[in-house]
């Protein structure tokens, strides 16, 4: 497993340069609450036909900064993006709430302070 740190402002550029659909399988978007209003966001990829090759791009951020959407690069990322909107209360460009929770839910279960 290889972890590569990036920033929200360079995320699209970095993953755009890395992601080739016929080489890399997009696995998931993930969030990990770090406490004190901080969160680690991860975008996880595995290589087709290569054993144990996993690459994770990650960003250390807070809950107030909007997260750019990867849907223009990876259409299937919308599911994971909608999930972190619900579960962490993040704002992701173009991703609606209401995947798992009520659309107007005020609680976000995986957010530390909830």
């Amino acid at each position, binding site marked *: 497993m290889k972890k590569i740190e990036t920033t929200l402002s360079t995320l699209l550029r970095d993953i755009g340069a890395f992601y080739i659909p016929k080489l890399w*399988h997009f*696995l998931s978007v993930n969030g990990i609450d770090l406490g004190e209003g901080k969160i680690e966001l991860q975008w996880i990829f595995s290589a087709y036909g290569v054993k144990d090759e996993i690459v994770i791009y990650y960003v250390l951020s807070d809950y107030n900064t909007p997260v750019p959407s990867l849907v223009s690069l990876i259409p*299937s990322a919308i599911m994971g993006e909608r999930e972190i909107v619900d579960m962490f209360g993040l704002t992701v460009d173009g991703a609606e709430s209401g995947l*798992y929770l009520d659309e107007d839910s005020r609680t976000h*279960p995986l957010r530390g302070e909830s």
Partner: protein
Amino acid sequence: MKKTIQIPLGSQHISLLEPIRFKFECENEKIIGVDADVGFVHRGVELACTRSFEFKQVGYVVARVCGLCAITHSLSYTLAVEKLLGYVANDRIKYLRMLMVELDRIHSHMLCLAHTAENAGFEALFMQIMGDRELIMDVQEAISGNRVQFDYISIGGVNRDLTPELVALTHKNLGLLSEKIDALIGLFDNNWSLSLKYKGVGVLSLEEAYTYNALGPLARAAGLATDVRAETSDFPYEALGYTMILESTGDIHARNFVRLREIVNSIAMCRNIIENLPIGEIQEKAKGKPNGEAVVRVEAPRGELFYLVRGSGQNMLDRVRIKTPTFSAIPAMMEVFKGAEYADAPAILASFDPCMSCTAK
């Protein structure tokens, strides 16, 4: 501009096994747009894994994410924790875990094939496949003690050994099933209801499979060569006869055949496992508390199941991330619906073998 109408399917519908709601936008009988609502059975499992249960208990919690692939959930979680503890299972434990996962794949694929037959109006075949599936359910129950929620895999091993009587039962039932699957292959290939009706329906092209990150039988039916069993080194699949099954047309017929041929391959692997079962303990000490971050991929019946586990040396974990196959397949599924006839929607949906308990978790 042609008039369009919106037709809902679900959340409760006779063709659905679990709750999911589609909103189809149709032009006459053709679907031109689709929206899906998948969260009806959200239970907060990820939260429970870090707030309500200690890491030694979580393996039994995640098995409750899904009744059909409970064994792959508990295996994925257990492998992740064992990586954090620096523990590697002996070969006997690996073989026993593989046996249960492949048995699980066989009965899960048979359930999907039964419902595909049912959606073609072939009720008798539905009943026949469900009856034949009991051969595997009986073996799973005899080995693990349970038909569905197995709780067979634990950190450091498995909970029951394979006795000579269980080996004999497994051999016998696999032999009986093998004959029945051969007959099913002929039926799915030659019967009008199952072959002509499903050829060219619900097509996912190879290009779309890459674009929408399709996985599991859905991807392999479109010709995308991906299978976690070939992309991880946690288990010696190749040595036990694993073969990647590929089709090329990407339609319902191809998805049926990927599943049928994977059942044949899994039966062969199960036979190899019980004939070459290594000697060793079935439960070993895996000491310590999880510290760090580990990721695990396991090929569940519907495709790649992914777990990320992070711990900081405590009994309670910091994060358990579960990414299930159907969750990832939703975008590809929605793409396949576009352009299809509305009347084919239930059959297309059944051919994806969706699991909403996994998806909403």
